[in-house]
């Protein structure tokens, strides 16, 4: 996304009409990839991430195995079609760096000691990029790992916060991300109130950073509630309409005979 000289805040609101602390519309669903052990698809506005999780499973090559614990392999990748300019497929330095940072966001959360010599593979693919892709990926990965049955201390909820035109905001979209004075990615264990990822591009005063952390904390809690609801809703019992109808018919038939 190109840089712009236009104002990012007009009439006290952001370009897309949001308040400073407001998240974009969020959608979440699990089992997006049926064959994976766990999967999820999450969108924040126009940013869309899909994650598949496999594992714990046998780790090859053997020299990567750790005898006392399992390892986590996290791959963050942007699809070539995710931006208006084609992204060259394959590894990029940015992709490798985000993969590592995201993996570190989950290292203290997963109970890897329970699975010596194995690997949990997390594949995060960004299908559409409009700012805050790594945190969208982390939100989806957290749900996918839960659905796969990977033991964790908590879910991980993540969001971006930053500063545009001197104003502190949450959930940066593409144009805000590219034109921000500071862009901070935060991932947390929401119920433990602990931060597992904190990255920043740009410049902030100490006070501004702490204010942003509070904003991130509040929004991560909101995101956590959505993650929880999306997972639980998928397991809610669907009334078996056909069975109920048949049972009603049988009863009616019995009554008319008897």
């Amino acid at each position: 996304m190109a840089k712009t000289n236009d104002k990012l805040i007009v009439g006290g609101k952001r370009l897309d009409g949001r308040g400073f602390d407001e998240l974009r519309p969020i959608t979440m669903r699990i089992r997006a990839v049926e064959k994976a052990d766990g999967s999820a698809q999450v969108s924040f506005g126009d940013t869309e991430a899909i994650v598949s999780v496999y594992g714990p499973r046998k780790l090859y090559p053997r020299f990567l195995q750790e005898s006392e614990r399992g390892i986590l392999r996290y791959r963050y990748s942007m699809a070539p079609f995710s931006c208006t300019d084609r992204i060259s497929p394959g590894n990029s330095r940015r992709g490798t760096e985000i993969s590592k940072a995201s993996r570190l966001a989950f290292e203290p959360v997963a109970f890897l000691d329970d699975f010596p010599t194995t690997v949990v593979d997390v594949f995060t693919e960004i299908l559409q990029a409009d700012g805050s892709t790594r945190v969208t990926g982390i939100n989806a990965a957290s749900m996918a790992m839960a659905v796969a049955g990977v033991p964790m201390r908590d879910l991980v909820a993540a969001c971006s916060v930053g500063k545009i035109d001197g104003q502190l905001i949450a959930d940066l979209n593409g144009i805000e991300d590219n034109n921000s004075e500071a862009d901070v990615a935060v991932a947390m264990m929401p119920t433990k109130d602990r931060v597992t990822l904190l990255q920043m591009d740009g410049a902030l005063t100490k006070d501004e950073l702490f204010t942003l952390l509070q904003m991130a904390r509040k929004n991560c809690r909101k995101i956590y509630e959505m993650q929880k609801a999306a997972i639980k809703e998928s397991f809610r019992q669907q009334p078996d309409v056909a069975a109920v109808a048949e049972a009603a018919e049988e009863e009616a038939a019995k009554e008319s005979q008897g």
Partner: protein
Amino acid sequence: MDRFEREPREEYDYGRSEPQPSDGGEAAELHEHAHRTIVIPGEYIDDKKGRKLGNDVYEEGERVFAKVLGIPVISENEIKIIPMSGVYIPGISDNVIGVITEVGISGWTVDINSPYIAFLPVADGVDEFVDTNRTDISRFFDVGDALFCKISKVTKNKTTRVSMRAMGARKLLGGVLMRVKPVKIPRIIGKGGSMINMIKQRTGCVIYVGKNGVIWLRGDNKAKAIEAILTIERESHTTGLTDKIARMLGDLPGVVQPTAAAAAETKPVEPEVESGVEVEEERIERPKPAWEPANF
């Protein structure tokens, strides 16, 4: 001679009890109530109050939390979770179905559908004395053979050993193997075996269920049995499943009901080679049995 009479004893299995996972009942029932009490990782369950903790929960001080997505089971003595998904982790005394992947000198390597590989030592696989210096043990079990066996040991690093010295352990001949999520196995077995026995009776198939999520089936109607099992796996957390499966299976052609003669047969299997009779999947060759089948 009627081919039916020459069928090996295992073909019709009615009335014979198979080793079953002991928690089929409770877990099966609880799957039905998933919509009411499912918890996500990190969710608080209860205070410990001196109780024993299961595998899928963790404690912080006095408070107990879930490690995985599942249904909490809280009793006077224990707090645990019935997980909704997860890989199979070998547990001692589990009955599993494994496939031989390597033939070694003093034993076999067995794939038990787990991140952890199992080993079957020759002494636990074969009843007779085997001089490993002279014998090629592939004459007992070869690569690709499917076995119904028991986990005899699991170390803290999850190195696993299996054994054929167990009630009902055997090599599985012919038939097909299928994989389901290991956590769905209790629901597939049902309370006291009710669900799997219904499937067996209505389809006339021989079915062995491994706790590791591998199921072996043989019989003319196995396609229907497979469909029923996959339906249970998909809808394990709904109610009315038993009736739905019963309706699905209905009455199928060619199902032989148990006769008094078949049930009374308890003689050991004679070594037999079926010549000229081609079975669907492969020639069923029966080497002399390595152990005396126990009376079931």
